[in-house]
């Protein structure tokens, strides 16, 4: 029982690290949103592993952190949705999806590739 919590706890630690790496090195905003979600998943799984260690009285895990996890997943979805909407509006306005401060004007974006 404790084994699953430790194993997935370590897996979650690796997920957070992977997400942090991707957040820094991937220049595309959508990839950063993806990385943000990987970090979030890692935090949630880590929290879930801690909840699982609190199993008692026939509960598979401590119900309080598990309920907070449901709230967390929904809030992460809301934040992701807002980020994606901002990104799509940026793309509609400029024809490019970049965070570079010297963003190329619309003509430079190779919009013909699609």
């Amino acid at each position, binding site marked *: 029982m404790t*084994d*699953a919590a*430790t*194993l*997935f*706890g*370590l*897996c*979650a*630690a*690796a997920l957070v*690290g*992977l997400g*942090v*790496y991707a957040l*820094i090195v991937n220049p*595309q905003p959508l990839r950063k949103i*993806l*990385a943000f979600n990987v970090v979030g998943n*890692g935090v*949630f*799984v*880590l929290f*879930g*592993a*801690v*909840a*699982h*260690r*609190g*199993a*008692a009285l026939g*509960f*598979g*895990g*401590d*119900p*309080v952190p*598990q*309920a907070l*996890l*449901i709230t967390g*997943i*929904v*809030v*992460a*979805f*809301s934040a*992701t*949705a807002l980020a*994606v*909407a901002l990104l*799509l*509006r940026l793309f509609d306005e400029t024809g490019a*999806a*970049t965070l*570079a401060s010297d963003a190329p004007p619309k003509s430079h*974006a*190779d919009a013909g*590739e699609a």
Partner: protein
Amino acid sequence: MIETFNAGLALLVLALAIWTVVARDTFAAVVGFVAYGMLLTLVWVQLHGVDVALTEGAIGGGLTGAMLIAAAARLRCTEGAARAERPGVATRLAAALVAACVTAALAVAVLALPEPAPTLANETAANMAATGVGNPITGVLLAFRAMDTLLEAIVVLFAMIGVWSLAPDRAWGGRPGPLHRADPDGILAYLARVLPPIGIIVAVYIFWIGADLPGGKFQGASILAAMWLLAVMAGLTDAPPVSRTWLRVALVAGPVVFIAIGAAGVATAGAFLAYPDGLAKPLIKVIEWALLPSLAVTLALILAGAPERPAR
């Protein structure tokens, strides 16, 4: 046996997470992310969080995945320009170092967790009888930590308002997202006719048993939203203009009922969101019934995106 399964599952999750980081094509990375989200639901089941697994599958993997796939498809033409922005080796090494430090710190924390583990399971079990519901997660969500759930419902609504506020002026009050057309005899239109009746029953069932078994309003609402979006994407129906009064009422009805019952608690039970003795279960039911349609409409409209087309 189960240890082998868990180890394999952890490795697969990590492999797919690595894929979403290193894949050159964003669309391929997002597809990997969806598969990864589905595997995470198995991780939740192994951690005995079936309610969380349902939420992860419906919202974390399902709705987030659908939204990211749509965005990746739309941004495909920016892929080439972004490749030129890739950071150099020095930045990547520094990032890897930072990431390794974060992982190492978390791993040390995981291995040093206190024994025996602190838990609120005893307190929850001791007080469950007062709520009248059988599922401890529902008890926590709607009785012990009802404030979190209220704020969560409002955060979802705020996110939708945020998405709407990104509409260009000419489209304000209009219909969200692009107009979807699909071959009326194609597989998408076929599935959009066959799946919703099944999906609606599954959604209502998951919602209905949520009081006593894993399930609940968020999971049910996500499935309802997905079914509606399927019909929209197949071109069988269109998203309503966001200026419709019935739509606005549907959006706020759930949170308003929740706040009203919470405020009534001040008079009848002495605290905001407290329930009078013996009335906890019926009041929880009313809140859940009020939140289900509001959440379904809100989640569906978040997925549909900002208004883009004039109402008519």
